């Protein structure tokens, strides 16, 4: 079947003039991509899985040994690691919930015509176009208790957002919300503009309330795309490193990615950090899978 399709190269095209077949072109485009994926993604992935069962340390010249599940056992019984996971869970919930609410709210506001709509939408998208490290450094200045504008505007005196062990994590989450709400807004806007206008007109004729229209028309029709935004943001929030790393060194804000970095590149405990990376990967996969299952259900409706 496929070979039949492959011979159908447009005889007038330049490729045909050079004597290339469909097969050649396919190979030309696909093989480099495949090679790239295998060399830079799949191979390291499998290799690191192997490392996770050893006591290999990249900074030591001594031979490594196979230690079975010891790394996993040690990690899963380490209180510090569990507290890192709890911190990460708190962070994911606060920052993703915040982004969904702010992003969707902004999209609702923008989903009508008003002057300079294009410009305002573009300006609102700016935060997510910045580098996370830059955002982290700037917000560190904004939070400064001595002369930061945030405390000045809200009259908080010298409240130390990032040095207070109880508020540091939330300060980072607020920054993440600021940075990534535009992403949710963008997806929601696309979803909102796809809702057929006649449904609203019909609802208006039936004198449906705003709340009724919102919960019965808008939300159900936009929810698949909102779920996609949720999946992306949850995955990303789980892996957050740069913003948190630049903003604070509070142990109460030490996300799992930061612990992983310290273990892998400051302590050079390569085997154990590979194991930790796999634990994180499995968790992210599990959460994403739950979402995807739910997404499929929503789509069926």
């Amino acid at each position, binding site marked *: 079947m496929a070979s039949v399709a492959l011979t159908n190269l447009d005889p007038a095209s330049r490729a045909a003039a050079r004597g290339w077949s469909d097969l050649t072109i396919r190979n030309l485009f696909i093989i480099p991509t495949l090679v790239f994926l295998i060399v830079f993604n799949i191979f390291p992935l499998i290799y690191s899985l192997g490392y996770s069962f050893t006591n290999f340390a990249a900074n030591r010249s001594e031979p490594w040994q196979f230690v079975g599940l010891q790394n996993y056992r040690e990690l899963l019984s380490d209180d510090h690691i569990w507290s890192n996971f709890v911190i990460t869970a708190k962070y994911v919930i606060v920052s993703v919930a915040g982004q969904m609410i702010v992003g969707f709210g902004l999209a609702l506001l923008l989903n009508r015509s008003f002057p300079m709509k294009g410009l305002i939408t573009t300006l609102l998208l700016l935060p997510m176009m910045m580098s996370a490290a830059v955002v982290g450094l700037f917000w560190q200045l904004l939070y400064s208790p001595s002369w930061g504008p945030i405390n000045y505007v809200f009259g908080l005196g010298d409240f130390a957002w990032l040095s207070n*062990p109880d508020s540091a994590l939330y300060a980072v989450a607020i920054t993440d919300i600021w940075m990534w709400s535009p992403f949710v807004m963008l997806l929601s806007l696309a979803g909102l503009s796809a809702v057929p206008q006649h449904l609203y007109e019909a609802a208006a004729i039936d004198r449906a309330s705003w709340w009724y229209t919102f919960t019965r028309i808008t939300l159900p029709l936009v929810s698949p795309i909102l779920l996609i935004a949720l999946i992306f943001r949850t995955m990303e929030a789980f892996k957050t490193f740069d913003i948190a790393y630049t903003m604070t060194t509070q142990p109460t804000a030490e996300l799992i990615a930061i612990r992983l970095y310290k273990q892998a590149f400051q302590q050079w405990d390569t085997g154990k950090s590979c194991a930790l990376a796999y634990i994180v990967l499995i968790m992210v996969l599990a959460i994403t899978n739950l979402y995807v299952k739910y997404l499929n259900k929503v789509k069926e409706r």
Partner: protein
Amino acid sequence: MRKIVTSVIAGIGLALACGTSVRAQDKELTIFWAEWDPANYLQELVNDYTAETGVKVTVQTTPWPDFQTKAFTEFNAHGDAYDMVVGDSQWLGAGSTQGHYVDLTDFFNQHKLGDVMAPATIKYYAEYPGGSGKYWAIPLEGDAIGWSYRKDWFEDPKEKEAFKAKYGYDLAVPTTYAQLRDIAEFFHRPDQKRYGVAIYTDNSYDAMAMGVESSIFSHGGDLGDYATYKVDGIINSKEAVAGLEMYKELYKFTPPGWGKTFFVEDNQAITGGLAAMSMNFFAFFPPLVNKATNPYADVTGFFANPAGPDGKRFAALGGQGISVVSYSKNKDESMKFLEWFIKDETQKKWAELGGYTCSQAVLKSEAFQNATPYNKAFYDTMFMVKDFWATPEYAEVLDQLNQNIYPFVVGGKGTAQEALDKTATDWKATFTKYNRYK
């Protein structure tokens, strides 16, 4: 014809390009260091070497938080990007036992560097394991924890009077930690946006550990027995606990938001007129005497780390030695450079440029001690320094210390005894893992 001419020209061009690049490579050395003023001074110094010998020497830098990671990534990959590295004293263990550094013992003995450089700098920047007589680095930048303070606040007659009334002794440069604490408390006036003291609290690398260990050492405590790796009963001794408690006490009198601070913030505490006293490594003091960077340059003074209750007086060692990277392709050329670097006149020039030489002769000279307001304090300090663990697993040990003391000092969680007991347990487990108790 045209084709032939073009290819001939291209061929000549290529040959020339290859020829020059090979020549240039022979005559180029790269030194890797962290991004700070002394690295700029070093670049200035080595320009002289280039003028003398024609060998181009480049000092490559990276920000402090990345320094360790970047250097060891290169070492672990056996990369030859750097010919020499000005590495932290804690790296000696990993550098020597893992084969990253070239053994400089013969070079050391041949040039009798043991008599040339200050004893503490040899012990901590060059020798590993301690007392083995094996050397892996040439002391390059001496450094230790010291203090800057606001002379005008200290000398204000009204302040002096109020201080005497409150504490019963004269307000002067503190010679003990107890006095330092009183003065910090005295000047801590948040309503006037004036604060007592600025200390290190950053736990991403060794900043906070250096501040805490200075206090522990002066209080008569130690981190452990570096020869036998015994830690229980030493890092959690009552002296060490008192040292950590003092650090926590000082944290009370820091400016608001003082939870992730290192040299930049501690210098800003002085240049911004925020704090009465500020801890910092001596290498960061030059901007404080420069009017362009410190509006209070005229009224900023310096003192050495104070003593503990029993009169013991120590300071945490910073500073670095220069090592030859064993994967370098220019090892011979690097050795020639080191021979030039240890010459007396080079060391003198190094000190003049602002580098902290470790050469005894230069350190002891009047000219050096009077060159800046802080050189005298530096000289005093260099004879009372102690350092952190230098074992290959120091990064793990450092991280465990940070994890245990940070929540106590900054977060106010638990007690000093609990934090250090936990540290002793963690360290013992780590040293056991690496078979240190044979």
